[in-house]
């Protein structure tokens, strides 16, 4: 198990290097003179030179790359052009909010999605299945920013149960988490359903029935755990979707997280911040995928014991 985990971590290294390299070249892909773009149209020649100096753009590219890597290893993500503060600090102050939002969304989406999927799969072709799958296909089709506004209108403006915007208490998390989690719950439900249907056709499920086990024991004891092995992979992939969705959701609820920081930075053309945020988002995605691989092994004794 430890060996497997290590192997997975080592396997991530090439992707990690490519991602970091990609992000490094990102700032250099801006058409024209990056320093001029960053400094702005009204900037004087001195301003542009100052930016160039500041970002180290006047040095040879391999030196720049080395400086960048060295900075990363020391937790230095550069200085924000917008706030003139270290980007690392900016990110740190927003990180917790986004983490809370994504985890809350993922938690409810997984529970609801899995239960709905099992329910639909168990009653394949009956009204329960049609209901569940109609809800699910609607869930993946609804624009989450629109859903967010509907929720604000209903629960914050009309019913006044929840605050409209902001962060800080759990009440601020409820509506954004519903907004963000809906499509994930729907995707998990659809996948769980087909996985359960496939698993229920397996020979060992027939064996379990032949033993005279109660249908509930057959479903949860034999079919469920096996179908979860493929479901966790999907949940992991959806996490990326969730990170992306958080950008939109945070914008709707004026939620001070990484997503809204990204939008602010893009609007301000704050390239060091954009660069670091993209890096953070993809690192998080990679870490989640590692966790998924480990969870996959925990569920699968053949990998766990090898």
């Amino acid at each position, binding site marked *: 198990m430890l060996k497997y985990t290590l192997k997975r971590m080592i396997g991530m290294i090439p992707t990690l290097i490519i991602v970091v390299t990609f992000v490094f070249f990102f700032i250099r892909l801006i058409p024209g003179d990056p320093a001029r773009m960053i400094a702005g149209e009204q900037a004087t020649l001195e301003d542009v030179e100052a930016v160039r100096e500041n970002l180290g753009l006047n040095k040879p590219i391999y030196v720049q790359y080395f400086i960048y890597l060295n900075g990363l290893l020391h937790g230095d993500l550069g200085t924000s052009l917008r706030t003139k503060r270290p980007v690392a600090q900016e990110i740190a102050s927003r990180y917790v909010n986004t983490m809370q939002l994504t985890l809350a969304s993922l938690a409810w989406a997984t529970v609801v999605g899995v239960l709905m999927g099992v329910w639909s799969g168990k009653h394949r072709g009956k009204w329960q299945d049609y209901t569940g799958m109609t809800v699910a296909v609607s869930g993946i089709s609804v624009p989450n920013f629109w859903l967010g506004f509907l929720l604000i209108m209903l629960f914050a403006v009309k019913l006044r149960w929840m605050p409209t915007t902001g962060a800080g208490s759990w009440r601020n998390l409820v509506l954004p988490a519903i907004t963000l989690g809906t499509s994930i719950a729907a995707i998990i439900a659809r996948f769980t359903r087909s996985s359960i249907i496939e698993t229920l056709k*397996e*020979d060992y499920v*027939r064996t379990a029935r*032949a*033993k*005279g*086990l109660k249908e509930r024991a057959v479903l949860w004891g034999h079919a469920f*755990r096996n179908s979860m092995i493929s479901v966790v992979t999907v949940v992991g992939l959806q996490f990326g979707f969730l990170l992306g969705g958080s950008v939109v959701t945070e914008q709707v609820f004026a939620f001070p997280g990484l997503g809204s920081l990204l939008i602010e930075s893009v609007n301000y053309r704050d390239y060091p911040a954009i660069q670091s945020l993209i890096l953070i988002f993809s690192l998080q995605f990679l870490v989640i995928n590692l966790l998924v691989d480990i969870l996959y092994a925990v569920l699968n*004794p053949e990998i766990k014991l090898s």
Partner: protein
Amino acid sequence: MESRKNILEVKNLHTYFHTSSGIVRSVDGVDFTLQEGKTLGIVGESGSGKSVTALSIMGLLDDTTGRIEEGEILLDGRDIVPLSKEEKRQIRGNKISMIFQEPMTSLNPVMKIGQQLTECILQHQKVSKDEAWRIAEEMLRKTGVPRVERMMKEYPFQLSGGQRQRVMIAMALVCRPRILIADEPTTALDVTIQAQILDLMNNLKRDIGTSTLFITHDLGVVAEVCDEVVVMYCGRVVEKADVYELFAHPTHPYTKGLLHSIPKLGERVDELEAIPGNVPNPKYMPAGCKFAPRCAYATEKCHQAEPAFTDLGNGHTCRCWLCEKGGMA
């Protein structure tokens, strides 16, 4: 012939599958009787309805489109067809249990062997977990596997195919059922292991006092384990006899065909005879004798009307026009 108690009687069983393109009559009027302590073989090609017969007896048709349309299945004289789902569930694994063809996929890959063995006991008997564990270990030991204690804590992927089938046998017998249905239990195994598993089943059957319904396409296996044989073709029984009688005097052309297609030990054969043609599409059955299109002796009559059973004496019956007019063929 000694008279024994009939433990299982199948009478006029019809099991049909309802598909969107029509009804498939997988089992279409099957009768047979299993006597206490005996082994009854059901022989036929794939598609003959032998496995569907087994699933009908087990009450495992629920998640298919199949239904028992007509007929009775008497377990100790009581018809189990009209029972509720819950009552059928209580019989399964307890009074009637089943071993399947594929030992590699019939065990749950993420559950330990011990747990898979004990859950059956805990479902049907009022015993503690420790007691169930002890019963399971004892049964597993009887199947002759090595290092029982360790195997109880292992996963199926850690066992060989033969070991898995022994586990399957232990699992089927752990509640000491009245009837064991074995559906091609040795087909997926190596020939050397096949013989061991057959021996084991014979021994355990005697030990526990279970009667067996042995489903196979392999007449060699039938000769080894069965007391009586039912030959099925296209959802019907075509011939029924004592095992010695059947091998000595096969009467139905289909049975003869099956016997000719197995090599005999010590006999030099240049060519094995295969039965020409294929099993007909179940949606488009021939009007007369179902075997007529493949039968070398078929006459005009065979194509037009289906023969009834002819009693050949000694419990030997056969469904063929040839034996009807000519008596013993």
